[in-house]
Structure formats: C-alpha cells, structure tokens
C-alpha cells in the first residue's frame, strides 16, 4: 500500500466523486466527501514526510517504466503543493455542513461534492505527476469541474462568469497543450525529467522558444497574471462563497506551481532569465498586477469582488518573487503561495459566514456587523491585517522576503513599489472595517446573530494559521527555502 501512495493521492478523490453522485443521499455523500478529503490530506502529509527524509519519490503508473510510461514524481515542491491543496480542501469541506452557508441549493448538493472532489483530484494530480501531458489532462479535469462549481452561484451572473471563465480557461489550457506539443516535437519525450535534460540543450531553436512562449502565456491565463486576469474577479465573486474560498486558495497556487515547473525544472533559469530575459517582462507585469489589483479593490462595493481583485494583486507578489530568480526571491514567492492560500481561504470563509446571515456580500450591507457578528468580523480583521503585512501575520513574512530579494539585487525601485502596494491594501481593508465597526445598523436592517461554531471553526483554523505561521515562520520558510534552493540550484539561478 505504502508504495502506491503517490497514485492513491489522486485516485481517492477521483473515485469518491462519482460515488457521491451515485449515493444520492446528501448525508451519506457528506460523510464520503469528508472521508475522501481527510484521507487525501493524510496521504499528502505522509508523502511530504517521506520526501523530507528520503528524497524524491518516483512511481511508475501501471508498472510501465518511464519514459514510455507515465511517471508520478513527488519532489519537495510537489509535496509542498499536495499538502497545501489537501489542507485547504479538508478545511473548506468541513465548512460545508452549513450548506446554506455554501449557498448550494438542496438537490444540487451531491453534484457540488462531486465537482469539488474532481477539482481536488485534478489539482493533486497536477502536483503529483511527472509527465507533461498528464499535467494537461489533470489541468482540464480540475478546470472543467471548477467551471461547474462557479456556475453554482446564486445569481444568474454566475452563469456568465462561469462561461467566460470556461472560454478563457480553455484557451489557456489549449496554449499549454500546444506548448507541450512543441516540446514533444523537439525532444520526443513527455517525461519531465527527460525534458529537463533535453530542453536546455535545444534552447537556441525557435521551436523551443515558441514552446516556452505558449506555455508561459497559457499558464499566465490560468494564474490570472495581469493582463490576463479578467476572468478572476467575476468568477470569484459570483461563485458560492465556499467555492471562492477553495478556488482562491488552490487553483492559482497550482498554476503558480506550473509556472515554477516550466521556468525552473523544464527550461531552466539560465535560459529563461539568462537568454530570454523573462524578468524584463515579468517584473513590470507583476508590479502592474500588484497595483491594478489593489487599486481596483479599493473601489469595489462588493466584498467578494474586493477580495478577488486583491487576489490579482497577490498573484503579482508571487510572480515577482519568481522573477528575481534568486533563492530569496523564489522563497518569497513560494512562502507567499502558502500564506496567501491561508489568508484568502480564511477571508472568503469569513465572508461566507457573514453572507450566510445577511444574504449578501455588498459592502453597505455589512453595516454594524462588528457588534452583531463579532467573531466573523474579527476573522476578517485578522485576515485583512495579514493582507496589509502587519508583523505577527504571514503577510509580513512574505513581504520580508520579497523586499529582501529586491534589495539584494539592488532593485530599489521595485522594493519601494512593493511597500507602496502594501499601503494600498490598508485602504481597501480599512474600508470594510469602517463600515462594519463604525456604521450603525439602521432600523430596517434584518436582525442577525453570530454564526455557529461549525462555521466559525474552519474559518478560524485558516485565519489562526495566518497568525501562527506569522509569529513562527520557521516551518513554512524552511520548506520554501529548501524547495527554492533545490530549484535554483539544479538549473542555476541568478546569483544575487
């Protein structure tokens, strides 16, 4: 059993999905879903422990050896993502006993679970696999189920949001497929290990450069990197709140994983930053993302939309860290991956808590909730402080490494822009706080009370993580640093 863990990581949620549909009875389906999520988490943690002690795990699917067979390859980076995605899934799924909170109507509940499990399976597969085409397959599995999840939102605008997401996402995935095709065309292999060996030798050919271009653009679409981010605000604000929490905390993270794989593992930093000078493109785009996302967030009247635009900005931080191509920079990007997942997941869940009582996510409707729903609003406050980067929260840790990486390379302007955009976060977080704590509740507002512990617990688990890992970041930073060293080390980064 133990040696099959890599594939079980994907199979458990994958099989649980149709089972949920067959089972029909929501209560049993709920049990099934919880079991599947927690089992995935257990497997992910076991795999991480194994990778930490004995190094990269390889697993040949069906016994067919690579490079002809599909190989699952779990190294430190993959394990990091596996743990992150399964933790978020487990927490968000334990949020769902409050079905009204998730805004799912009754007869669609089993469909919801099936889609969520499929999305989870897809994302776990992307992280676990070592075969390029397999990545595409899992990417589409997770994306198509994500489109359906978004469409489950309450308003009819959710349908259009899901449709746009589908169109743009499919184009992105098709670009990735094209890139894979070019890579295969030049090297004759789909195994990422072998590609990592052959591709750097062929980087002078135009085909390989085109392959990189398509892969980069495709992944950027999935990552919602400025200016290809247009699908994200609609999708995250129209989706049911629990879905937004899940997707915000996982799908962009997996796309970032893909970017890291493409840049560092497949093509190598020497090519990407050395001859293609991708940093000249990526740094301005990241900074544009940081500012456009934050500024747009300040003007939103809907809290979910505000958080969605904030996510666009945070993706900019992650890619900025990557574009430095140093150990510190990549550590910053990777640690922000984890930190943002905790922050945004927690924030969307707190919005879900609030939404379950007031039935809306409009900023004006949050009037006076500071007193009526103290714990839900408190969780929003802590998450917001983390977005700003107050020391003691994980946001500070990320900012520390990003500014450090910028200063290490003498990029004073970039460092200044990083801190400037953090200040924008103060503006949009404080808008919400002022309404919630200072605007009085008027007579015709519905009387609301705090949500129960079943909804508060998962929210506070994620928000608590933002404080815990902000006060003692050894674990997350240590992991991110090990991963960064491994990645920058093999293929050679830019020395600071």
């Amino acid at each position, binding site marked *: 059993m133990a040696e099959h863990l890599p594939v079980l990581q994907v199979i458990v949620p994958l099989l649980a999905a149709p089972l949920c549909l067959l089972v029909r009875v929501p209560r049993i389906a709920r049990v099934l879903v919880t079991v599947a999520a927690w089992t995935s988490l257990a497997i992910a943690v076991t795999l991480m422990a194994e990778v930490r002690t004995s190094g990269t795990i390889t697993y040949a699917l069906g016994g067919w050896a690579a490079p002809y067979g599909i190989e699952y390859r779990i190294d430190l980076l993959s394990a990091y993502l596996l743990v992150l995605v399964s933790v978020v899934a487990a927490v968000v799924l334990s949020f769902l006993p409050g079905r009204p909170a998730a805004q799912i109507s009754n007869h669609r509940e089993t469909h919801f679970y099936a889609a969520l499990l499929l999305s989870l399976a897809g994302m776990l597969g992307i992280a676990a696999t070592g075969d390029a085409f397999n990545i595409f397959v899992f990417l589409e599995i997770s994306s198509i189920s994500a489109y359906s999840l978004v469409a489950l939102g309450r308003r009819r605008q959710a349908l259009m949001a899901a449709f746009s997401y589908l169109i743009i996402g499919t184009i992105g995935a098709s670009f990735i497929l094209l890139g894979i095709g070019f890579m295969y065309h030049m090297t004759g292999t789909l195994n990422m290990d072998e590609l990592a060996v052959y591709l750097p030798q062929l980087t002078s050919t135009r085909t390989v450069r085109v392959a990189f271009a398509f892969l980069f653009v495709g992944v950027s679409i999935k990552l919602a990197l400025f200016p290809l981010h247009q699908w994200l605000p609609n999708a995250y604000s129209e989706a049911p709140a629990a879905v937004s929490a899940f997707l915000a905390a996982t799908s962009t993270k997996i796309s970032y994983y893909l970017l890291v794989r493409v840049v560092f593992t497949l093509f190598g930093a020497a090519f990407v930053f050395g001859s293609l000078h991708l940093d000249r493109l990526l740094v301005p785009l990241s900074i544009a993302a940081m500012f456009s996302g934050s500024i747009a967030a300040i003007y939103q009247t809907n809290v979910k939309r505000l958080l969605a635009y904030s996510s666009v900005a945070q993706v900019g931080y992650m890619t900025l860290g990557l574009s430095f191509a140093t150990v510190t920079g990549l550590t910053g990007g990777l640690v922000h991956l984890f930190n943002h997942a905790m922050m945004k997941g927690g924030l969307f869940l707190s919005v879900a808590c609030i939404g379950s009582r007031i039935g809306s996510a409009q900023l004006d409707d949050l009037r006076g909730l500071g007193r009526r729903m103290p714990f839900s609003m408190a969780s929003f406050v802590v998450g917001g402080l983390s977005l*700003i980067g*107050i*020391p003691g929260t994980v946001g500070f840790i990320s900012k*520390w490494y990003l500014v450090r990486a910028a200063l290490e390379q003498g990029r004073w302007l970039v460092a200044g822009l990083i801190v400037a955009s953090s200040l924008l976060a103060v503006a949009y977080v404080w808008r919400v706080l002022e309404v919630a704590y200072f605007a009085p509740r008027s007579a015709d507002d519905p009387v609301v009370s705090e949500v129960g512990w079943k909804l508060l617990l998962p929210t506070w688990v994620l928000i608590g993580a933002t404080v815990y890992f902000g006060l003692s970041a050894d674990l997350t930073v240590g992991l991110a640093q090990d991963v960064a060293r491994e990645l920058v080390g093999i293929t050679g980064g830019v020395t600071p």
Partner: protein
Amino acid sequence: MTPGIAIILALLLPACGALAVILARRHPNVRETITIFVTLGTFGAVLSLVAPVHAGLRPGATLFEMLPGLPIRLEIEPLGMLYALVASGLWIVTSLYAIGYMRGHREKHQTRFYACFALSIAAALGIAFAGNLLTLFLFYELLTLVTYPLVTHHGTEKALAAGRVYLGVLMSTSIGFLFTALVWTYLATGSLDFRAGGIVAGKVEGWPLAMLLALFAFGTGKAALMPFHRWLPAAMVAPTPVSALLHAVAVVKAGVFTVLKIVVYIFGVENLRASGASLWLMYAAAFTLVAASVVALVKDNLKARLAYSTISQLAYIVLGAAIATHASILGAGMHIAMHAMGKITLFFCAGAIYVGVHKTEISELDGIGRTMPWTMVAFLLGSLSIIGLPPFGGAWSKWFLVLGAADRHQAFFVAVLMLGSLLAIGYLMPVVVRAFFAQPAAPAADPAASRPAPGIRRFDQAPLLCVLPPCLTAAGCLALFLFADTIADFLRPILEAAMP
C-alpha cells in the same frame, strides 16, 4: 521574581488586564478596580527591573523565532527602562484620571476604552523592552493598531476622518520607510540586534548611511518629524485621557524612543557623529521644533496648541539624538521623562477644564484661574517645566541638550534650543496669565449646558479624579528636577562603546 519573569509579567499583566476588563464589562466598578490593580501590578513589575539594570545586568527573554535567525527577543537596557518606567508609572495616574473623566463626561464604550488602553501599555512596554529591531517593529505596529480604536473612540465622522489620517500617516511611514530600513539593515549587517556601539559601523558608510538614517527617522512616524506630523493634531479628536497618556506619553515617546534607541544601538553614537550623516537630521529636527512652536502660537484650541507643542518638544529629542554627543543623548533621554511629566499635566488640565466647564478654546478661559485654582496652578507648573525653567525637570534636559550642542560647536542649534524655549513661553504663558489675571467672560447664555453631571464629587469645578492627577504630575515635575542627576547617571552606561 527573577528579571526574566518580571519582563514577561510586565507585558502579560496589561494584556490579561484587557481581557479581564472585557469580561467585567457589565460591572463598571469591578472593571475600574481591575484596571487600577493591573496598573499597579505592571508598574511594580517594571520597578523590580530597575535595580538589576542599574547594576549593569541586561536581563532578557527570547520568545520565539519569527523568521529563521530572527527571534522575537526582549532585552532591557537603561533607555528602555526609563521609557518603561515613564509609561507604566504615568499609566497609574492616567487610569485614575480616566475614571474621573469618562464618568464625569458620561462617555460611551468605556470597556473598549479601558481594554485598548491596557493593550496599548502592553505594546508600549514591548517597544521599551525590545531586544532587536524586529521585536520593536512588531510592537510598534501593534501599538498603532491598538490605539486606533482609542483615537476613533467617539465614532463620529470627525473621529473616523481623524482615524484615517492617524492610520494613514503612521502606516505609510512604518511600512514604507521603517520596514525598508529594517530589511536594508539586515542585508547590510546580517543582524537586527541592538548592540552597544551600533551594528552598521563599517558596513554602511557615506551617503547611504544618511539615507538609512532618513528611512529610520521618517519611518518612525510616531516621532512626528515634519512633514509626517499631521497625525498628532488629528488624534486630538480623541478623549483627553487618550491624548494625555498616548499622545503625550506612550505613542509619541515610543516614536522618539525608537529614534534614540536606533541612534545609540544601531548606528552607534560615536559612529554617527564621526560620519556626519546626521547633520541633515539636525536641521530637520530644528525646523520641526521652530515651525511647530510657531503654529502653536496661533492655535486657539487648547488641545491643538498642546499638540503642536508636543511636536516641537519631540523635535528636541530627535535633535539631541542627531547631535550625537554624550550630553545631547543624555539630554534627549532625560527629556523623554521630563516632557512626559510636564505634558501630561497640561493635558490633564485641559481635560479637567473640558469636563468641568465645557470650554475648549483658550479665548474662553479668561479668569478661569479663579474658579479652578488648583487646575491652573498645575498648568502653570507643567508649563514651566516644558519651557525649561528651574526648579522643574525640563530645565535639566534642556541644559544637557544645550551642552551637547555646544560640545559639537553647533552654536546655531544652541540658538534654536533657546528660541524653542522662548516660543514655549509665548504659547504657554498667555494661557496662565489670562486664567489668573483676566476678567472672566460673560456667563454662558444657557446655564444648563454648563451644569456638571450629578453624582460626581466636585472639586475645583471638575471631578476630583480629574484634578488630583495633574496636581500629582505637577509635583512630579518638581521631583524630577531633584532626581535629574540620578536619571542621568542611570542613563550614562548606554554611551559606552562596544566591547573590543
């Protein structure tokens, strides 16, 4: 009690006190009793640390590691000890005052007030006891956040707008400049520890050193160095106990304490003086000193005048830090205590006047010395200390500052310091003179408006608890004069260079 435990206790007591206050919210008398006991306990814990620090020990405690290689560390040295004593000692007086004020004024949200107050003291003590820059930054930001509800206490549009200025200026400076300075220091020196003699010597030189100093000085928005001073007058919208303790003592002293500590323990006094990197800061501080005093001259609102006076007095401390001679550093450190005692007296009086007779503008205060004699005498004594006349504490700190400027042959700055005192006379003495010697204005058209709230013991037209504390602190100004050389001796060890 070992020093290590005392340090943790000093931080934990106010924090737990805040929690206890929240739990006791339905029983105001219990709540207030908790507050008083916690203030006494905290001061006791802080006091117990004086002897070991004076003996040369540097007790500390490492809490946890936030970043690899950068722990959250507490460590006490004389400067921090002084600040901690000032903050925790004056907290006792202010709590008494706050009880009088909040009840006399029938303020709302009193629980939130007392809880946030306690948390601010915890944060201030955290700053005082910080063992490295990271810990200081952590508690510095916490102080900003925890004092925000106090500034916006009244919840009105005006309070919210003031809160936005407060937060905006403080956050922008701390995240924009101070954080950058922190990262730069870490990259240049590999450490963020406070060490005798500083850590940047030899690692950062020339104009980058001046840049780094600029980032630190302007990054410490709480030191109210112009042009980042706007938050201070804006914060006057808060109830007077808040202005008194926080914006005369805890928050602003956190700012100048930070500047002073960084000059002594990060840059190194000798290093800074020799490099000349702080010359620009001397001019910036001098400008703030004079400009703020001039603005104070024209303000009719008493609290606004006191606010600009505070900005000016803080500049004294920053100037002392920038001059970077032994005497000026000592003077700056002493001024932390002297100004705190003097200014809190003035704010207490302003609050007592407001609660008692509902007056806020100086032009309305003619002849009030007759009806509120004790209050105005306290105001007089506090003013004399701020102006810097013996036999009040302010005289000694001014003396050391002038001595320090002279040591460095900076006649210009000696003149600036003198000018500051003259301007202080100009903006403080008229208040006293008008109070005692001018004819009172016609009685208010509506006597009911100025009728005091019933059920409060009245003395001097204001609640007793609003008049007693300023009298105590005014006496404190006198006492500080007598103990000034004790303070100077206590602070002298910080000037020792690093062990070779």
